[in-house]
């Protein structure tokens, strides 16, 4: 299986404070990889470094076989790498329709961008009903759907998703996890999913990466993380 994302010896941080140290893992194409770990483990920092919002202080990120060093953040989406940041990333001052339009502005293939937009409305009927509402009028679940839907308009190969379950009701979280499973199975989308909600994440993930204090402490198939009591107790706390 080809790897969409290969991370080697990655270090990064804020100013002189190192957060990630020597992080390495690969994400195979068409799979969901969950990044787990406690608050402050460096999960969000990892995603921000992968998408170039933070500059790595060492190591390498290869996406689809290409070194991402020096690639500008705003060009990543054109290569099929979409990042839905923590806190949902909806531009709350813009309407639903404007948010979605924003997601496809860079696309040259206008016809396909329109098709992708229609698909998003089909996937999330709630968004279609509220297309003229401002982002701040949406519920938490709707915002998460909008952020994911907007990322899908880019027709990404790799989706980086930061804490989609944050602040959502369990039922809504389950819907989002089911959606990720569907996107993986039907479209072959590769997902790197950062989650504090370990059970939800492992319900959809193929493999899990456990981080602690900026390092990867374990990488294993999701089924093993679910079933191995020792691993669960040691790293995931349940």
């Amino acid at each position, binding site marked *: 299986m080809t790897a969409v994302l290969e991370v080697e010896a990655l270090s990064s941080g804020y100013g002189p404070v190192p957060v990630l140290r020597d992080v390495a893992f690969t994400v195979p194409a068409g799979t969901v990889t969950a990044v787990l770990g406690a608050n402050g483990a460096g999960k969000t920092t990892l995603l921000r470094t992968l998408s170039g919002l933070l500059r790595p202080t060492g190591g390498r990120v290869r996406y689809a076989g290409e070194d991402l060093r020096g690639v500008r953040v705003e060009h990543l*989406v054109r290569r099929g790498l979409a990042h839905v*940041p923590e806190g949902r990333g909806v*531009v709350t001052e813009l309407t639903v329709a404007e948010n979605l339009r924003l997601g496809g502005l860079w696309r040259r293939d206008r016809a396909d961008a329109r098709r992708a937009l229609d698909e998003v409305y089909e996937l999330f009927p709630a968004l279609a009903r509220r297309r003229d509402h*401002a982002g701040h009028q949406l519920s938490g679940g709707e*915002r998460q759907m909008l952020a994911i839907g907007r990322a899908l308009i880019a027709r990404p190969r790799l989706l980086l998703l930061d804490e989609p379950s944050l602040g959502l009701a369990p039922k809504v979280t389950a819907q989002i996890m089911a959606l990720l499973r569907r996107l993986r199975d039907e479209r072959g989308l590769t997902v790197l999913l950062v989650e504090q909600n370990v059970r939800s994440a492992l319900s959809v993930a193929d493999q899990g990466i456990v981080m602690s204090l900026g390092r990867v402490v374990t990488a294993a198939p999701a089924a093993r993380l679910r079933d191995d009591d020792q691993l669960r107790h040691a790293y995931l706390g349940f």
Partner: protein
Amino acid sequence: MERFWFLTFDGLAAGAVYAAFALALVLIWRAARVVNFAQGAMAVATAYVGYAVVSATGSYWLGLAAAILSGLALGALVERVLMRFAGPGGPLNQVIVALGLVLVIQAVLGMIFGNEYRPAPAPFDTDALTIAGVAALSPYDLWVLGAALTVVALLAVLFTRTPIGLRMRAAAFAPEVSRLLGVSVGRMLTLGWALAAAVGALAGMLVVPTGLGLHSHAMDLVFVIAFTAAVVGGLDSPVGAVVGGLLVGLILSYVTGYLGPDTTPLAVLVLLLAVLLVRPGGLFSAARARHV
């Protein structure tokens, strides 16, 4: 009553310029969260360019175009060369750089053009037309009103109806998310400064012929009044800038007309103070969007 109508028309014509100038301030505030204190000086510099072209070619319209184009260029230059590097240290740095820019521009203009008021002829008659026995607007006032309102309308269309406008709004509200969606936020910022300076240049060209003439300090009071208008309307609101501009134009016209011109600067301050006390966000401040 006749006097009241005269003051009303006069106030609206002046207010239209304040509205355009306040709109330029709001554009930069929304894009970069900085009040461009150099806007008056930048507008004067472009007005000098404009009137240099007017006297060289004899055409007011070529001069106007030159002023607006030099405004675009100056705005982009200020952002790329100064503000981009002052930005990371916090907004206060940019304010201080803007204040420094005022001194530099005014000093350079003084060195090149001297310290006297230069004539800045208006393209239309400035004597008020008398309609049904009431002295109303002059042809020049009509031009000012029309030009300012046209610019406001064009900007509204640009921001709400075009892809580039959507990019600019998104880049201002959520720069990081916008970058992740493929928007070149830096370019949008440059464009925002360029547009604002061009609007400022137009406002400068409109207002200079109504005053004593072209001088490096010709826009100082206009800047203070337009700043007041922007605060009255709410620094975040383009609609507020326009309404605030017209409102402040009217109020100052009545104050000047009924109480005398000496009270005008005082009225500006009283108005500013009143708005900040009663509604600090301005009349059109949006309810703070919740960020969950």
